[in-house]
């Protein structure tokens, strides 16, 4: 009798542990397969692949720099625009609406809805609606009035780094604001009360006691949003123009790591295919680094409280 019961426990534990092992195995298999697929390219180009600025598949001159640059630039634009807005939303929901829980819940739901919109729909909206609008009402005026600054010197046609950055900003706002909201909610009320008791205004309480307390969690939210911007494929591919370029001009078409994979696979073979897999490996390593870092920050901030993304 006793041994039969124990056998049931053991069987269940083994089955469940197998599922947990599968997840570890998946991450390991991802790394191994991408490395093996990229090995021809790694062997041929070595570390120079990372700083090669030319991408001419016909002549096997392949360098990843334009794609790394495009990914970094579009993510940077997205963060510069998206981070302040996300923080504002988080502060509004967790601090201003503290006594209006229902309204806060509703607003949270609306912002979360932005996260539920598939990225291909952002892309469709970007290519057919946002591009003409941005081109005529933002990019051309900027170019005409501030064209002497290198950032705005190119003639804007709509498909460029700037548009991709804007679309990404819209896409990362729900991520950053939702996580920061949870982090701010995890700040103990005694922190706020202590500050109020000293005669601080509402903003001073937020600025000097809530935000510093939540600092590392908010940084985690920021890094998580960065991860989303770096990995995003479809919306960016549809609006960035897909031409490799390294330039400070925001109105120039560009290319990112993930849109290169989306566009040029399938038609490729041999060394060219291996180079694209190496681009995938770079994306994998960057995403791994960013996500591990973000999780670590959030874990440190919220031990014992519930914060999820």
């Amino acid at each position, binding site marked *: 009798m006793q041994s039969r019961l124990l056998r049931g426990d053991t*069987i269940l534990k083994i089955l469940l542990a197998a599922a947990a092992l599968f997840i570890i195995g998946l991450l390991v298999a991802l790394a191994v397969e991408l490395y093996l697929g990229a090995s021809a390219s790694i062997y041929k180009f070595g570390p120079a692949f990372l700083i090669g600025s030319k991408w001419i598949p016909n002549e096997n001159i392949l360098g990843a720099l334009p794609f790394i640059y495009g990914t970094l630039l579009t993510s940077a634009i997205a963060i510069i625009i998206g981070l302040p807005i996300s923080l504002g939303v988080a502060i509004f929901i967790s601090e201003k609406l503290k006594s209006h829980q229902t309204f806060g819940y509703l607003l949270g739901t*609306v912002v979360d809805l932005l996260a539920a919109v598939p990225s291909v729909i952002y892309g469709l909206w970007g290519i057919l609606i946002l591009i003409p609008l941005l081109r005529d009402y933002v990019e051309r005026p900027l170019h005409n009035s501030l064209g002497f600054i290198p950032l705005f010197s190119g003639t804007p046609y709509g498909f460029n780094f700037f548009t991709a950055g804007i679309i990404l900003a819209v896409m990362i706002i729900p991520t950053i604001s939702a996580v920061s909201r949870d982090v701010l909610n995890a700040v103990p009320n005694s922190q706020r009360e202590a500050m109020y008791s000293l005669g601080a205004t509402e*903003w001073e309480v937020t600025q000097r006691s809530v935000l510093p307390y939540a600092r590392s969690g908010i940084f985690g939210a920021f890094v998580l949003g960065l991860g*989303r911007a770096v990995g995003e494929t479809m919306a960016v591919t549809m609006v960035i123009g897909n031409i490799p370029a390294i330039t400070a001009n925001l109105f120039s078409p560009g290319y990112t790591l993930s849109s290169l994979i*989306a566009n040029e696979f399938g038609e490729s073979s041999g060394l060219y295919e291996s180079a694209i897999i190496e681009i995938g490996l770079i*994306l994998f390593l960057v995403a791994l680094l960013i996500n591990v870092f973000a999780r670590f920050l959030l874990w440190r901030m919220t031990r014992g409280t519930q914060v*999820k993304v």
Partner: protein
Amino acid sequence: MTKPNLPTSISLWRKIVDKLMTILVIVAVVLAVIPLIFILGDVFIRGGAAINIGFLTHLPTAPNVAGGGIANALVGSFTMVGLAALISIPIGVGAGIFFSEWSTSQLSTVSSFMNDVLTGFPSMVLGLFIFIVIVLTTKQFSGFAGGVALSLVMIPIIARTTSESLKLVPTTLREASMALGIPRWKTVLRVVISTGKNGLLTGILLAVARATGETAPLLLTAATSEHFATSLFQPTASLTILIYNYGTSPYSSWQTQAWGAALVLILIMLALNLTVKLTIGRNLTGTRMEM
């Protein structure tokens, strides 16, 4: 927490800064909500004009030929998401139970951390992985490869939601069950899971919604097709790839159909997400929509 009245002696400057920041925060909220209104508005107006019964039941046509539909893409999406659910539910739920019920084990800590990392992973990389493992081996794009790629998107979501919701089941329930001499495996399967089943269902629905909206993993695995797929081992059309191809095409008839397909997709997503948000997920703290 009630806000105390400020002393009257407070300087004007501090009051101005306080008001200014309140205004900035509200501006941020408006800026965050405006794109949602625009996107949903455009999809509903433009998509609504494109949708009729024929659109849902006909096969695609050449550009600027009237009467084209998205029937094969709808069937393709449902087939691949269905296959992905079959693969991901047992693995995701299993891992989630392990994370919550054996939370002290080393394997559980490592695996659940990696699971969190995977949740934020670019889905393009998952698609590339399945391309290397399945498409290069079988030498063709297939609905099977697409379904497997989508399952990799779903597993981490299901595992995490499962473990979070089972952690909310009070320990006293487990202890009461064990005190009655019920073995642990039966306690887990009968008591813990049945108490936390709403959370499990939430995770599965969110994962299904997320997979239905994914495009990148399907590009290199299922590719696309203009016909109904008759087996799992041939290229298969999907709603999202159709929106991508039609949206980036120069033909106005295809662009109109892309809006129609986008509306169908968004209705599916909204239905799944709102069901979760308004009913079963309501009482679960910390569950939220996934993207």
